[in-house]
């Protein structure tokens, strides 16, 4: 058994190691070392907890059993999960953090003596507030992430679910959560605690259902942030520095990511959270849908265009992930490079279903990360490039965002694909993208539409090169 002071110092060390873990991610070279720091910090935190309790009785065996049980499930998932399913995985993991926070809070509420929080029915006021906030945020994270997971997995429709009185209802529930926490603190009734948990689960569910599929990058980042705040709340209850530091880190990390994602769509955070995007815009776009001529081509035409180019920029999007086309794409690029054609990749901040989604897929397909560029880095190069190859992206290339103040995506930063000498646009049909707006790029003089499955088309082009 080690003293409380010593264990507090070790918790501080593991908190610092977690900071270093995030710091490592500033570049791919240092990132692996960073991950190692994170693992080390976790091992220290867990070992110190065992040592500080010093109770190696029969309970200890069960802790190990449950630990190894969960650990082997986690390891199994980590090795088996395809990279395209990363958004679902992260959403699923968020829900587990949320639920774990709820369980720890329940446990502390039922047996406060074990945590030095006072006695049952007479928990210290501060601890009770921290505990109920941690539990409520944890519950919201859990049910919200479950909905996000179901939407990403396609089990639940990605389209927004809205109903009348949705916002007043949500506001009412949020207010009642605050009232319940206040009442719980004054009368300490366990019934109130259970009601608090139940309505927190409910609000998490209600908050995420009106948010559509393409807004998932914001939702996932936001839930990431919530899971951090939940952990911090529990950290205050347990008076544990490692947990407080980590909670704050994760909380601000998720908040920054949500901010970056919102900026990538030129929408305010509240606009995304209130949801229903796309559903309201469909009316305005349908009226302007007159038939306009498009040029469509086949793999042969595309191969011809690219063979005669000296530089090609590839714009991947969610469609590439859906079609699992990243490996076929890299093979095509390899062939292009053999012909001395310069190839680079342009990634929009909100391409895909989570922050950095496209980068991971390209890395999986062995694309070197120094060929992959962010929007600001590459946007000026489009004017000098010969061919832009748009695969699975749509709204992020729409020039309407720059020209038409009436458009719902007006002001959103977009890739200047139309400035290229020619544009190859791989798409299954002419249907408008998520935002429900027509892409002017389809009808440009220099655009050639390639109507096919992204993977099949890329393979065919490679054959024709």
């Amino acid at each position, binding site marked *: 058994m080690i003293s409380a002071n010593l264990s507090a110092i070790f918790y501080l060390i593991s908190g610092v190691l977690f900071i270093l873990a995030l710091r490592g991610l500033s570049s791919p070279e240092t990132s692996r070392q960073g991950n190692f720091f994170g693992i080390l910090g976790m091992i220290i935190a867990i070992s110190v907890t065992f040592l500080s309790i010093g109770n190696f009785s029969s309970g200890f065996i069960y802790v190990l059993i449950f630990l190894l049980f969960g650990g082997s499930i*986690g390891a199994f998932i980590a090795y088996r999960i395809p990279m395209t399913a990363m958004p679902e995985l992260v959403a699923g993991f968020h829900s587990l953090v949320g639920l774990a926070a709820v369980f720890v809070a329940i446990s502390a509420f039922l047996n406060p003596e074990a945590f030095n929080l006072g006695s049952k029915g007479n928990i210290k006021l501060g601890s009770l507030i921290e505990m109920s906030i941690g539990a409520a945020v944890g519950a919201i994270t859990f049910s919200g992430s479950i909905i996000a997971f179901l939407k990403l997995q396609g089990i639940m429709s990605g389209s927004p679910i809205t109903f009348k009185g949705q916002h007043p209802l949500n506001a009412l529930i949020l207010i009642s959560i605050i009232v319940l926490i206040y009442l719980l603190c004054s009368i300490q009734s366990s019934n109130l605690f259970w009601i608090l948990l139940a309505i927190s689960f409910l609000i998490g569910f209600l908050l995420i259902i009106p948010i559509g599929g393409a807004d998932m990058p914001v939702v996932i980042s936001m839930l990431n942030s919530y899971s951090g705040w939940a952990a911090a709340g529990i950290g205050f*209850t347990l008076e544990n520095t490692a947990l407080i530091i980590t909670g704050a880190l994760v909380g601000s990390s998720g908040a920054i990511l949500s901010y970056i994602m919102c900026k990538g769509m030129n929408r305010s955070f509240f606009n995304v959270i209130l949801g229903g995007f796309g559903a309201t815009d469909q009316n305005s776009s349908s009226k302007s849908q007159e038939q306009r001529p498009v040029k469509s081509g086949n793999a042969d035409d595309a191969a011809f265009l690219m063979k005669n180019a000296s530089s090609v920029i590839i714009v991947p999007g969610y469609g590439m992930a859906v079609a699992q086309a990243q490996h076929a794409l890299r093979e095509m690029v390899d062939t292009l490079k053999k012909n001395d054609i310069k190839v680079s990749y342009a990634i929009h901040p909100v391409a895909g279903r989570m922050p*950095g989604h496209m980068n991971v897929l390209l890395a999986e397909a062995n694309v070197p990360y*120094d060929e992959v560029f962010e929007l600001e880095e590459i946007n000026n190069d489009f004017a000098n490039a010969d061919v832009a190859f748009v695969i699975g992206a749509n709204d992020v290339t729409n020039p309407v965002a720059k020209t038409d103040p009436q458009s719902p995506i007006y002001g959103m930063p977009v890739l200047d694909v139309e400035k290229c000498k020619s544009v190859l646009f791989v798409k299954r049909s002419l249907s408008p993208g998520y935002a429900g707006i027509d892409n002017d790029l389809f009808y440009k003089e220099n655009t050639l539409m390639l109507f096919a499955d992204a993977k099949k088309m890329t393979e065919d082009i490679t054959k024709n090169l």
Partner: protein
Amino acid sequence: MEIDPFIFRLSIFILSIFIGYYVVWSVTPSLHTPLMSVTNAISSVIIVGAIIAGLAGDTNTVFNTSSLFGFLAISLAAINIFGGFLVTQRMLAMYKKKKKDKK
């Protein structure tokens, strides 16, 4: 008059938010997905609370309602810890620089 220890914890919390703010802004956008999976893994340090809860029962009664929730939380957090770190490692191993000898 003594300062409530809560104030110290609050100070750590606030300062950590600032550290998080600056550290996360320095994360390169191409590593945002690993950032999410690793933050997932480290926020599962909540397992510390779960272990305390699990071991709270006395020697005769290992399982009571409170410790049972603790044990369940241990499993949930462990899924995240192992899954989160390993999947991050798997992703980071894929980020490679251009090979010089190529072409």
